[in-house]
């Protein structure tokens, strides 16, 4: 037996371990200089559009704060890491941010499955993590250092179910869900649960996968069941095509979706988008100056309308900055305390942390309309939690 390879591997492991050693005392964070804030997101891969949106929202917020003098008299420095849409890479990125770059807090991620992978790291090293848009319940259950500024799947499902039952008077609904996205699966379960509880009938959900382009088969089957309302709980690119193909098949019933519908490519749906509704974090046409300010500065800088993901990332940074100021420190546990008691007026609503480290904010239901080549979300109603 030639054990040379084994010996080399061991030797390499020992050498690398020695190189990787550091003093235990090398833990204290700087008290002067820029405040490093970590950001991880899917800038490449199949989640890239969300990663890029959230990055833009975060950068906008950081630049605004720095222009106004920074936080605690120091400027914020956003350290951006890409996780390639992979949970394993998300953990790599967050480990690096927390242990190498010594960030004071981490912002991210959008997809719950990546946040769930990386959150334990933040928890272990006692660095607060604020997720802008992960809606899976389990995320904040990871530990008391994990927070979120968006509503959770169960709530959004409740909103949609209530709207369909009470406002649209639907009694029999069909659901088209994206089985490869935990967001869609979670939202589907929640919608089904709440709608049944209200007394309605939910047909067995039909599934597709992200990236699918043809839904005619699934829609035809749904058509034969004659539902009053169709829920499409996936993301915007598929939503656009689903609405188009549904209309092409002669299906005229209202189609409902969640906040995942908000994205440039929804435009694709064109006239098919009429008679569709979504639940959303905020309404771009909300006349509140906070919202309008955000929309115009974002537009000026990035040359397109912001989506909810960008708005949420923006809010996450604002909550962090507010908490840093109140804590008067960048120390992990102290910062955590401050975030846990945050009550900040955000673009996406009032961000008041509750005991579960989620925010109790209402959701809006908007009607989607398409006219003159543009998609507009018209405010319909607000539904409050509880």
């Amino acid at each position, binding site marked *: 037996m030639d054990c040379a390879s084994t010996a080399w591997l061991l030797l390499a492991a020992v050498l690398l371990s020695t190189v990787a050693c550091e003093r235990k005392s090398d833990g204290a964070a700087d008290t002067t200089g820029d405040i490093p804030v970590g950001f991880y997101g899917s800038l490449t891969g199949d989640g890239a559009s969300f990663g890029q949106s959230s990055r833009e929202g975060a950068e906008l917020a950081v630049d605004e704060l720095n222009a106004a003098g920074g936080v605690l008299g120091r400027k914020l420095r956003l350290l951006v890491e890409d996780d390639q849409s992979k949970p394993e890479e998300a953990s790599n990125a967050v480990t690096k941010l927390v242990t190498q770059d010594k960030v004071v807090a981490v912002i991210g991620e959008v997809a719950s499955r990546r946040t769930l992978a990386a959150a334990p790291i933040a928890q272990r090293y006692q660095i607060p993590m604020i997720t802008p848009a992960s809606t899976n319940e389990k995320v904040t259950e990871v530990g008391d250092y994990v927070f979120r500024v968006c509503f959770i799947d169960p709530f959004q499902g409740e909103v949609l179910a209530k709207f369909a039952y009470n406002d649209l008077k639907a009694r029999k609904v069909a659901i088209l869900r994206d089985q490869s996205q935990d967001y869609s699966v979670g939202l589907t379960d929640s919608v089904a649960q709440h709608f049944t509880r209200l007394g309605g009938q939910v047909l067995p959900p039909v*599934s597709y996968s992200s*990236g699918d382009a043809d839904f005619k088969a699934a829609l035809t089957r749904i058509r034969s069941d004659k539902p009053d309302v169709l829920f499409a709980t996936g993301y915007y690119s598929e939503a656009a095509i689903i609405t188009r193909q549904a209309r092409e098949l002669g299906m005229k019933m209202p189609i409902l979706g969640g906040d995942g519908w908000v994205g440039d490519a929804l435009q694709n749906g064109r006239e098919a988008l009429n008679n569709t509704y979504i639940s959303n974090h905020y309404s771009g046409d909300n006349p509140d100056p906070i919202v309008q300010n955000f929309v115009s500065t974002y537009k000026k800088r990035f040359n397109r309308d912001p989506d909810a993901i960008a708005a949420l990332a923006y809010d996450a940074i604002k909550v962090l900055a507010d908490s840093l100021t109140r804590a008067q420190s960048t120390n992990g546990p102290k910062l955590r305390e401050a975030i846990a008691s945050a009550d900040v007026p955000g673009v996406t609503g009032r961000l008041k942390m509750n005991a579960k480290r989620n925010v109790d904010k209402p959701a809006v239901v908007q009607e989607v309309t398409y006219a003159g080549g543009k998609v507009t979300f018209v405010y319909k109603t607000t539904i409050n939690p509880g």
Partner: protein
Amino acid sequence: MDTVLQQLINGLSLGAIYALIALGYTMVYGVLRLINFAHGDVYMLGAFAGYYLANALNLDASPSILGAIVVTLGAMAICGVIGVLIERFAYRPVRHHPRLASLITAIGVSLLLEYGGQVVFGANPRFFPQMIRAEVYSVGGVQITNQNLLIIVVAVIVMFGLEFIVHRTRIGKAMRATSFNLSVAKLMGINTDYVIAFTFALGSALAAAGGVMVALAIPRIDPLMGLMTGLKAFVAAVLGGIGNIPGAMIGGVLIGLLETWLSATAYSTYRDAAAFAVLILILLFRPAGILGSATVEKV
């Protein structure tokens, strides 16, 4: 009853898409015995080429049939060139290496096109301009759009066109000769390099046409769109008999019908796996495919 008919139409439309791409796959494999993994990504490039051309011609605001034809031909030309370049710089150097080297290179090219596409085009999906306004025709309880019809018609035309080229022209004869035995074809005076380049150009142009047609019907395009579709089209080609042109058409339609049927049942979640299950079954029981002929390997 009209649900069944509708699903049939749906399946045919989907199948025609796979068929269009499978035709290119089968042709290249037929001549070179190379599974061109990058074929699906050339399809994607065709869609993007069409996107930029159509926007340059401002066809979204003023749709026109002429414009659509120009865009399609333009995309085909661009991708034909790209196909030739890929062959020249990535596949030709490894042509005489063991076959697995070519396969790995093909995978490399595929990855390069996908992630390169993400870098160059950005990862956000784009929506393809409506060069031809969608119209829905309703016959009995069944709906079909003009774009879907277009895909089916084009696929059939392409199939007959390819058959003609391969079996009735000189270059087609040269292609068939090269596929039998490259070295002997060379000895016979055939410029095999040129024939192979032509094959790639033709295959890539077809993929591009497919890309534009599909982008019309399903307007969302992104750099990763070629991956899954390409793989399923490959399965379709194998199902019909790899190297066999009508086979690719049949294979494509069958896969399309199978996926449609599955989507309509409780097993919709397993739809993605269906194409691969078919592949495995076919290779186990009839590796030559439906229309293929079993070749005996001579020692």
